[in-house]
């Protein structure tokens, strides 16, 4: 293997993602090649610096804030969606009031829609939005590898 091919596996080596055989080949090359050895040290340093950043803990009241949103049925901060949610709530209120009036007039009230169920329906396509990365990257893996290897 030449240096270019080793460079591509620097990271896999750092991340312990190489097969035993490749790992040995890599180590053998490092011990023999000052250039790769120096460059590898640079990558290893970066990995250490980044993973050395200590963890940031979530605020203690995070659960409470989320539970509040869940109980209020708030699931979005998009103004348009909030407006639609508010409109739905108003509609439900209207239906409800109509129901009471109807009941008072000795009519059987119609079923009141469940706002929570509606929210889940509205959100069901959230996860299915698809791959943001695939959309912004029309380039195939093979081409990237090719570009990277020169």
């Amino acid at each position, binding site marked *: 293997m030449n240096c270019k091919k080793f460079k591509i596996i620097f990271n896999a080596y750092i991340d312990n993602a190489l097969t035993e055989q490749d790992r040995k080949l890599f180590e053998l090359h490092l011990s023999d090649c000052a250039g790769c050895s120096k460059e590898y040290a640079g990558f290893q340093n970066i*990995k250490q610096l980044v*993973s050395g*950043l*200590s963890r*940031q*803990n979530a605020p203690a009241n995070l659960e409470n804030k*989320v*539970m509040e949103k*869940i109980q209020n049925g708030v699931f979005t901060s998009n103004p348009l969606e909030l407006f639609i949610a508010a409109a739905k709530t108003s509609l439900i209120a209207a239906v409800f009031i109509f129901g009471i009036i109807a009941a008072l007039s000795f009519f059987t009230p119609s079923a009141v829609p469940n706002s929570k169920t509606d929210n889940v329906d509205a959100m069901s396509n959230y996860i299915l939005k698809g791959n943001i990365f695939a959309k912004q990257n029309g380039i195939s893996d093979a081409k990237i590898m090719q570009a990277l290897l020169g």
Partner: protein
Amino acid sequence: MLDDLQLIKLAKEGRLEAFEALMSKYKDRVYNIAFSFTANHSESDDISQNIFTKAYFNLKSFEEKAAFSTWLYRIAVNECYNGLKKRKNNILSLDVQICGGENASLKDTIEDKSVNVEDTALLKAMQLKIRKAILELPDKYRMIVTLRDIEDISYEEISEIMKISQNKVKVWLFRARTKLKDKLKNI
């Protein structure tokens, strides 16, 4: 102690305390992803709240084919990006109020570089430099470094979370680290 799948089953049945237990288990990990991506506490707080709120309202769409963490991290990735879209000019501001606890683990990293480890100001400056360098990376590279180096997630799981091939995981990681190496060459 109930496992994730048992908690999800209960949460799907409407038991809110089961979802709260899931949240308590994952909130620090989720927050840490958001913080690595934004370097800003208030943004991370907002994003984390959105992640869990959306997870709750989408719980029905979670099929037990993947691990709950993979599914949750995928929402986290999407929400980090959504947070970015809402922000004016997509410019992130580095939060200088990064808590002091960070210094302890960085000490080990630079101990062998004959730096006076008692010099907390220096350590603080150093961690800010690293955060800043991460923040300057293109979004996808910042995310991949976050998942791999901050969260220690495997190539395989990253490829599921980000919906990219493992090959691409490797290539993006290579590019991300190369850029960081360049930005941090004086450390």
